[in-house]
């Protein structure tokens, strides 16, 4: 009897405590994976797509897992669920997106970024969905900025040429023409996309134009606008237009998507695309930035 009454009291205390926490303004770091997935969708504590879970990857980090196989449109609901959970009401988010995760956050912001969102308590169920907080709504999500590692927002020529399985639904979205037509990439609702572009690619250099990280070329990882890809390189390459740092138009005049800024260009060709389950490659650069600035 004593144990039952204690249990009841504990549940009440825990519920009160969780409600108190939910009402406080809290910042979160949301990590959105790329092709191949790795973590269980809906489980925001599953870091198998990235590396050791103990690593500092920004304040209150959450793994916004999706399967990395199906279409952006059919999996984006899970991303929006996470944004509703952690980025509404008093809570704010920093986003780290990797590879095709670039398409996920871009799609969500461009097509749903001005929609009315129900404010949520940041305590998701096993499906990654959260309960409503006060029944109120707000316009869009509370997002401070977006870091993008090896972004595939502009697609990859590996999807164009049939080097990846062309029966895979996501590969269709990763074709350069499809990725660039999927949504208006300039519409970020005023959030900065900080682009981190790796250049340690060798294996597919004859397929990927300009500099690449072995999966995406600079035209994509650097957020270069346009309906198709093009050659962009490091300044040391005199035979190819430079991918410029920041927001300036690239050498040759091609603009970047608005609100996209090249934060890191791999001049020394040190960073490839692969996280290797250890926050490696270009993901490591973004992780370091999240550690420093997502707080």
């Amino acid at each position, binding site marked *: 009897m004593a144990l039952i009454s204690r249990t009841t009291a504990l549940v009440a205390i825990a519920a009160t405590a969780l409600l108190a926490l939910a009402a406080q303004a809290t910042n979160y770091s949301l990590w959105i994976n790329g092709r191949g997935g790795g973590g269980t969708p809906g489980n925001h504590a599953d870091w198998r797509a990235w590396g050791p879970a103990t690593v500092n990857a920004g304040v209150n980090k959450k793994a916004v897992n999706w399967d990395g196989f199906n279409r952006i449109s059919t999996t984006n609901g899970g991303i929006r669920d996470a944004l509703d959970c952690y980025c509404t009401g008093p809570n704010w988010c920093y986003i780290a997106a990797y590879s095709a995760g670039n398409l996920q956050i871009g799609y969500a912001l461009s097509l749903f970024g001005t929609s009315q969102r129900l404010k949520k308590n940041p305590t998701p169920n096993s499906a990654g969905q959260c309960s409503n907080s006060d029944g109120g709504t707000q316009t*869009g999500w509370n997002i401070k900025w977006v870091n993008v590692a090896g972004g595939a927002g502009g697609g990859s020529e590996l999807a164009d040429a049939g080097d990846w399985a062309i029966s895979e639904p996501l590969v269709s979205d990763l074709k350069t023409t499809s990725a660039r037509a999927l949504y208006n990439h300039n519409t970020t609702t005023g959030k900065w996309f900080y682009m981190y572009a790796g250049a340690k690619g060798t294996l597919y250099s004859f397929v990927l*134009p300009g500099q690449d990280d072995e999966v995406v070329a600079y035209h994509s990882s650097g957020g270069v606008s346009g309906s198709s890809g093009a050659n962009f390189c490091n300044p040391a390459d005199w035979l190819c237009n430079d991918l410029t740092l920041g927001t300036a138009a690239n050498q040759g005049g091609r603009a970047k998507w608005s609100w996209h800024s090249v934060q890191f260009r791999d001049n020394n060709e040190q960073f490839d695309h692969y996280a290797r389950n250890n926050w490696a490659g270009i993901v490591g650069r973004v992780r370091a930035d999240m550690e420093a600035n997502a707080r």
Partner: protein
Amino acid sequence: MSPRAAATAAVVAVALAAALGWWLGPAEGEPATASATSAPGPALMAWPPVTARATTASLPAASAPRPGAPLSPLGKAERRAQLALWQGRLERAQATLDGYRTSAQYPHESRPIEEHPDQVRPFEPISEERALRMPGGTAPQDVKLLTTQERVFASGTESSRVTVALQSAQGRPLPLRVTRAVIREVTPPGATASTAEFTPDANDAGRAGDARAGDGVISVLVHPAAQGFGGFAGTVRLELLLEHAGQPGFLYFDLVYSPETAAVWLPGVREVASPAGIDFFVKAMVRLPGRYVVSARIDDVQGEPVALASFNAEVGAGEQEFRLPVFGKLLRDTSPAMPLKVRDIEAFLLKPDRFPDRVMLPRRAGVQHTSRVHAIASFSNAEWEGEEKTRYLTELTKDVDEATREVQRLGP
């Protein structure tokens, strides 16, 4: 996390730990054990240097080591590192605030066209350059494929013209042969095909969508409704096997197709001017209710692009108007020569969590409406205001203020 939130979290954690200890502890009348549960204290404030490369050994954990004594060499070095860190945070926070403030001068649905460099001519064919190669194969460096694709999304009776041509590295046309052309549905994993393959007329003879015979440009028309895919919703794929001087190549082009008709355009564009700006209303008979995404290009009288006006909201079935606004301050800032022209209207029904995720409305290409002549001075110069803007400016200003205080505290 804000200091207030951190303090609250710590209090809650202590309370929970104490409650857990009490719950797990001996009930009244039971013997107590010697062990005690201590609540975890708040984590030490992180001050890690930003590492450029991370290895397993160097990846920083979520908690940091205890700082050195303030006046020790280690303590001074840590303070310098913290100052650098906070200077970086201040720079980021200021850029975030400045960016948002710039963006929020105008509402989301009325933007300067300079923000949308690849949306100015939305109906031009997509041009790409490709290597002549098979999947997994190598590519000769002295030739390149030039391709165009009319559209990526189509509905109803719309078609998409695809062209392919081969050039030398110097731009000289080269002969190219299509050894196989097929259009097929892309069947989702686990499903069975519901349509038969179609063999299109890939030609350079001026037939079936080919603009000019014998110009070295091979054309293929993908026309789902006329090629057996009229009842199929999904990706319709054109696959081409190519050959030049013994070198094979493979290309494929995807057209995301929906046979549905979401809405039918109704004629005319209505215009309403006020100090807040000019609203252009395009009308449609909506058959499928839902979220419609509509955009139009606004040019000045000389045809110079000025703005991108858009609509993104849910509407019901029946006769509906989509409001495409040009904000007053945007008109004041750009001072376009009147009258304005509404051009190239693109629209689709967005179907969340589905594939295909959209049903396109027919393109309204070219100038659709010419506005009345309005005096630029008649429009307000006031910035856009709203709850969202207030929410963002409050939060982002708080971040700048906090980083500023920390830089001042740590500075020399």
